């Protein structure tokens, strides 16, 4: 049943190629269907689905547990909102394909399969990033993505050669027992690929041109949806299968990336590129917290990830449609923009504050002062430019040639969703427990390889 | 002090009398040297002839001054400032004219720029003869003035107030209407 999540969008994507107009309408329906299936399958979670009833070791298996469920629901909800909001129908088909690939990526338990889905996502995101004729930016993104994905393939080959099987659970268990050194090198290779998608600075040099090109669609799709899926894969690989740290050079580069991308954002004169650098910074913060490999820190990192994704969604949508807006005559959009930007910075009554609060509390409990100070410094720099932009837009006096202030505003649909997500941020801000319990569950699940393996071993195979 | 029927009747109240006693013993000169006689003042104030013995000393502003010394010839330009400063001095105020230039124009009587008779423009209480009187003459004048004040005869400031119109008319006739065309005036 769960395979429908992959099959339906893929099938419909290619079915609707001839009727271009139709694709525009099918996309939201398909995503809605995904959500319905997902929630229908909620009760019997923690089940393996073997494609073509081949046993786990040989065939391709999908693994559907709570972690996958929550990530899938978040990804598909964001996809639903995006599909309702986008106005240009050129990208409906790539979006459908991307949806299928994303569902596949989260569900698969097979190395090669995850590589395939990763490739499909990469290709569709190259296409989407060409919005607003940003050819050079997407070409650079293509270069980065292409070269990086080779490493993922080499890593998968290592796992297959050593582990004998492509199944994640089996091979990592076998290699874990026999040759942990190789496991570490494979993880490094996987990390290089994923860090490109996770926009950590040395690997994420393509991000400002792609995100900052002014289109409403690209940054939201890449920023909120694809990054979240990649975070899932990265945490699954680095936390569940391997129980040693990545080489410390990764940790320091990520820390440096946080501060440097904030500084990059501080320098920018164009709001789009500032937000691009800001999303790089926040994603690097999440990765840095994942690299600490402590359960409490990881759960707060996920909390921070979800609230940040929502906030970025609002910021990018408003910027995509209005550019540097004048909120004097677009009050509700302005309030939504200010709410989400303040939540990004961590002002008390918004969700972002609890994200940073729990993160810092966890870090201090683990005596990890370095990351805490880096987070605080980065928030300080972020505070500076976010306030600058907020004030710039609230008190801008943009007289057009006709002299009166032109009052462009978000169309109703987008304004509705933007306001909705801003209010969600406020609600989470007032009652953080709602999201925190779920992320604690996720973190706990991510860490016990034991349960993951038992389900597989119990099923069949060796 | 009006001399009705040639009998000088002293109309001053008791307070006025006491005030005049005080005013006579402490006179402050307006340090505004209008003519060539001014050069006589410093020697009269320094160690050889000490004016301060009589309580007479120089003051920087007309607001605090009692005596106004017109020391010599008075050109039309300075006359306008003399009148402007005279009206700035508080009552009672006394004017002393030095030398003949203030009486009848002296050696500059036929010049286009000077005025011949000071009395037409501001009331003068005392004149000192001499084409620039020496300090002794100045002392003579000051003691005379002190005596006049005590007796209540130095009433130039009252005369100025009583027939103010007449003085104003003389002043305007000699100075002419002051018309200025610059950015400050409409």
């Amino acid at each position, binding site marked *: 049943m769960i395979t429908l999540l992959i099959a339906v969008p893929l099938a419909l994507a290619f079915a609707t190629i001839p009727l271009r107009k139709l694709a525009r309408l099918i996309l939201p329906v398909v995503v809605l269907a995904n959500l319905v299936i997902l929630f229908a399958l909620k009760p019997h979670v923690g089940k393996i689905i073997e494609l073509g009833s081949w046993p786990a070791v040989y065939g391709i298996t999908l693994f559907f547990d709570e972690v996958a469920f929550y990530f899938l629901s978040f990804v598909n909800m964001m996809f639903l909102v995006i599909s309702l909001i986008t106005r240009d129908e050129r990208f409906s088909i790539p979006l459908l394909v991307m949806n299928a690939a994303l569902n596949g990526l989260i569900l698969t338990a097979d190395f090669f399969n995850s590589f395939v889905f990763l490739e499909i996502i990469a290709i569709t995101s190259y296409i989407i990033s060409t919005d607003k004729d940003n050819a050079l930016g997407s070409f650079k993104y293509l270069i980065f993505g292409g070269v990086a994905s080779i490493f993922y393939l080499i890593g998968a080959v290592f796992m297959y050669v050593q582990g004998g099987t492509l199944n994640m659970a089996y091979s990592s268990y076998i290699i874990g027992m026999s040759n942990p050194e190789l496991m570490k090198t494979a993880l490094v290779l996987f990390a290089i690929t994923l860090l490109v998608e996770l926009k950590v600075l040395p690997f994420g040099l393509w991000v400002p*041109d792609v995100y900052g090109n002014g289109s409403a669609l690209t940054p939201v799709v890449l920023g909120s949806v694809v990054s979240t899926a990649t975070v899932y894969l990265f945490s699954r690989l680095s936390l569940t299968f391997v129980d040693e740290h990545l080489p410390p050079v990764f940790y320091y580069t990520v820390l440096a990336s946080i501060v440097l991308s904030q500084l990059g954002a501080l320098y*920018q004169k164009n709001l789009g590129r500032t937000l691009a650098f800001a999303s790089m910074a926040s994603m690097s913060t999440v990765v840095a917290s994942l690299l600490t490999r402590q359960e409490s820190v990881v759960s707060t990192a996920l909390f921070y990830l979800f609230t940040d994704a929502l906030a970025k969604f609002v910021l990018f949508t408003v910027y995509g449609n209005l550019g540097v807006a004048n909120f004097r005559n677009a009050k509700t959009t302005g309030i939504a923009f200010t709410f989400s930007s303040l939540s990004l910075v961590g002002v008390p009554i918004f969700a972002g504050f609890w994200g940073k609060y729990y993160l*810092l509390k966890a870090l201090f409990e683990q005596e990890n002062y370095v990351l805490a100070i880096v987070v605080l410094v980065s928030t300080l720099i972020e505070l500076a430019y976010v306030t600058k932009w907020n004030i710039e837009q609230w008190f801008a006096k943009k007289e057009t040639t006709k002299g009166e202030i032109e009052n462009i505003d978000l169309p109703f649909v987008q304004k509705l969703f933007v306001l909705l997500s801003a209010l969600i941020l406020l609600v989470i801000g007032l009652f953080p427990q709602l999201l925190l319990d779920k992320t604690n569950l996720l973190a706990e699940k991510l860490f016990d390889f034991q349960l993951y393996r038992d389900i597989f071993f119990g099923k069949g195979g060796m | 002090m009006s001399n009705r029927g040639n009998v000088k009747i002293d109309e001053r109240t008791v307070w006025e009398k006491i005030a005049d006693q005080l005013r006579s013993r402490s006179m402050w000169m307006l340090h505004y040297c209008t003519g060539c006689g001014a050069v006589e003042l410093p020697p009269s104030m320094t160690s050889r002839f000490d004016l301060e013995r009589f309580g007479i000393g120089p003051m920087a502003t007309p607001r605090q001054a009692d005596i106004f010394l017109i020391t010599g010839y008075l050109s039309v330009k300075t006359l306008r400032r003399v009148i*402007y400063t005279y009206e700035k001095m508080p009552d009672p105020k006394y004017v002393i004219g030095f030398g003949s230039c203030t009486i009848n124009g002296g050696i500059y009587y036929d010049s286009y720029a000077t005025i011949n008779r000071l009395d037409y423009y501001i009331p003068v209480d005392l004149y000192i003869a001499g084409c620039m009187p020496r300090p002794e003459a100045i002392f003579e004048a000051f003691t005379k003035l002190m005596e006049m004040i005590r007796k209540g005869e130095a009433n130039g400031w009252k005369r100025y107030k009583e027939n103010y119109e007449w003085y104003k008319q003389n002043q305007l006739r000699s100075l002419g209407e002051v018309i200025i065309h610059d950015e400050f005036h409409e």
Partner: protein
Amino acid sequence: MQNILLVAIIGSVAGYLLSLFYRRLGPIILLLISLYAFAMLWEIPSNTAENFLGYDVLYLTTLGKYFALLSLIVFSAYAIFNIVWIETLKTPHAFNALSILTLAGTLGVFFTTNLVVLYIFWELTVFASLFIVPMSKSEAKRAAVWYVTITAIGSFAFLFATFLLYSKFYTFDLVEISRNLSQLPKPTIWLVVCSMLTAGIAKSGVFPLHVWLRNVHGKAPDTFSAVLSGQLVKMGSYLIALLLSIFPVTTLFPHFYGGVNILSYILIWLGNVSILVGTLMAIKQNDMKMLIAFSTVANSGYILIGLALLDQVGFAGGLFHVFNHAIAATMIFLSFAAVVYRTGTTKIDELGGLIHRMPVTFITYLVGIISLAGIPPTSGFISKWMIFQSLVSRGMFVTEIFVFVGSIGSFLYVFRPLAGVFLGQLKSKYKDVREVPIIMQIPMILLVLVTVFFGVFPGQVLEFIVGAQKEFGIDAFQYEGTKLITSMGYWDTWIVFVMFAVGFLIAAVLYLITPKGKKIPLEDQYTSGEFLHNFDLYHYASRFYAFLEREYGDHPSLENLYASLVNALKSLGKGIDYLVSRTASAYVFWLGVILLLLWKGW
């Protein structure tokens, strides 16, 4: 306490909605809230604990109650003044809502000793006041960003210390933390206390972090700079007072000089430098609001010195100075707001002779500067006297130099607007300026009465201060009625006031029996014989202390230092931006190089 906070927060939303119909409703609501809060708070005895939305975090100390009542006085004066002044604003609804929110935030800060809740209300106040600052002048935008960033430096340091303490004691309650603070190793204590104090120092505009004060107070909407300087700065002083009194500073840190421990000595030196900087810079300013902004820096230095002395007289002096400066700064800024309401400019040399058209504003400003400069009949003198007594009794002569320069310097810089704006020649442009409407005059007159009343009968304020001192174990300040007693000597405010009245009476009698002076117009001046036609120029106001300013003309400016620091960071960002926008071929090349290194390195 909880319902005061809830009323204020709901009030801010109500303020926004109501002022949509009629813009003057907003300030009226703010007035009602502050009066209600004042009445409620007066009844609540100190040391009561309450819960706020389920978490029992609110705890009212006497110190908190004192500061809260003071801020309510400032806010009510601000509200009454706003009822008419709100007309000049382009965005009144947001202004009303955010100022009520600021009140809610400040009251929240004063009502709690739980560190996280204090941080939350602190940030709430900062962000509420942030969006008000750029509402009037356009160049205030940059000032607002500076305001937030520097205050954020302080509050993030505070947050860092809070979590450090939490990781050690698993509690956020300040009282409990202070009880077992001494278990921590020495360097950690230093780190925690200093980083917490940075928040207080940043917000109260003390020396290293005073750079934002000039622009923000100078360019904020006129009445709001009264709240900024009169009240929000006091939040910083409150935090310093709270930390210095709750943490056992005297036992934790070694004694240094004159009975003062090393931490207080450093704080005193920070206070000294901020007095010097504040005074010398205030003397230079030509914009009257920026001038008073720098006087706030100087007075925060005073308060810091008073508080850091932590003894019977000095601590009481510091707390009393908080009261005086709050009231005086509010009065002065309200009078400036009135001047700007009528004339539209804050530059001193463009104004002049306003006393003849706006007497009530003049009297407010006069009593304000008499209290700010610390001259006897008003309450300003009492606090300065206490600080002097404490410093002299301890023999800290270097600090005394700065304090004396500060107090005499305050005569100089408060006199500059007095002579430049209110006295001297009345500019022809403002010939027909009228006095501000009655509603604006009421708060000004009220504050005048408050200053003079507490100048003569300081009993009520001293009662709160003594309560705060007793609560934190500092031996309380002694006073009987109006006689203030210290180890070095005592004086009686009532007798001084009576003798001042007697002296005034004698002078008045002398004035009346002598002949009456005739009133002459402003143009009838001694002009050393010259005929002047344009009396606007006959006014000495620009570069008032030119001869003094030349002495310290080329002084190092901290503002430029911070600006160049930010530019350095931005150039780092520029480097990243340079890296980002390379051509694709460059990336391929570099990737190849990295691969080679990896291969060889492996």
